[in-house]
């Protein structure tokens, strides 16, 4: 059975630039046929907001790359329901790449994965 990896996005984009570098780990591991989950929790839920325009500050917009997750065969892409609603965000403000999921489900994936990375 192939090994599993969960990458946890828990920081908002741009203020820290870890999102893009964590995403690169997920895409690489997918190429090695690992079983990947991408999990968006806490301020990491802001990574998936639509209409990001960091180019007005000359920063690269890495959010379109999240659409590549499916292309790379990464099917488990979950965003934490409680963290979304606590921030007053709703599904229609988000890129259409993640399923909304309760904490208990997300925690189960963290617990079951062979490797877990944050950045």
């Amino acid at each position, binding site marked *: 059975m192939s090994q599993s990896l969960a990458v946890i996005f828990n920081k908002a984009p*741009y203020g820290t*630039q*870890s999102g893009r570098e964590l995403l690169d780990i997920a895409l690489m591991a997918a190429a090695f046929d690992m079983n990947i989950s991408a999990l968006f929790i806490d301020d990491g839920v802001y990574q998936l907001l639509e209409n990001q325009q960091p180019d007005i*500050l*000359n*920063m*690269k917009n890495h959010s379109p790359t999240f659409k590549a997750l499916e292309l790379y065969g990464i099917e488990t892409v979950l965003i934490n329901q409680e963290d979304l609603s606590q921030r007053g965000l709703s599904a229609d403000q988000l890129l259409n790449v993640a399923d909304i999921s309760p904490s208990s489900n997300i925690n189960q994936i963290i617990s079951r994965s062979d490797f877990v990375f944050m950045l």
Partner: protein
Amino acid sequence: MAIFSLLVTANPHSSQGQFSAIQFAKTLLNQGHELKRVFFYADGVLVASRINCPPSDEYNLTKTWAKLAIQHDFELTACVTVAMKRGITNATEAERNALTGDNLDPAFEISGLGQLTEAMLESDRLVTFG
């Protein structure tokens, strides 16, 4: 019209502060204010390396600072102690410390913390980006 100096301590590779500082600098210059000096301290000095090589579709902060400073005649000064520690050095300091290589971008200079104090005393406003 006012004289500004900036203190930039933000890591150019993993935070936003250098982008904010450049935007702030451009805006104040567009408004006709003067920029005396940008003083780089802590991880901020990492921007002073001429061999920083971001992907071609990303902004090159080092070159942007350099271009802006030449165009508007202000100083880009990196604190020597924290720069040496972080592997940012010019030819003179490299030789003095027996290092095999140097990497300071020619638009930047390395100097002491006194240049920060001087900037504080000789500018109307000092704004920090960390």
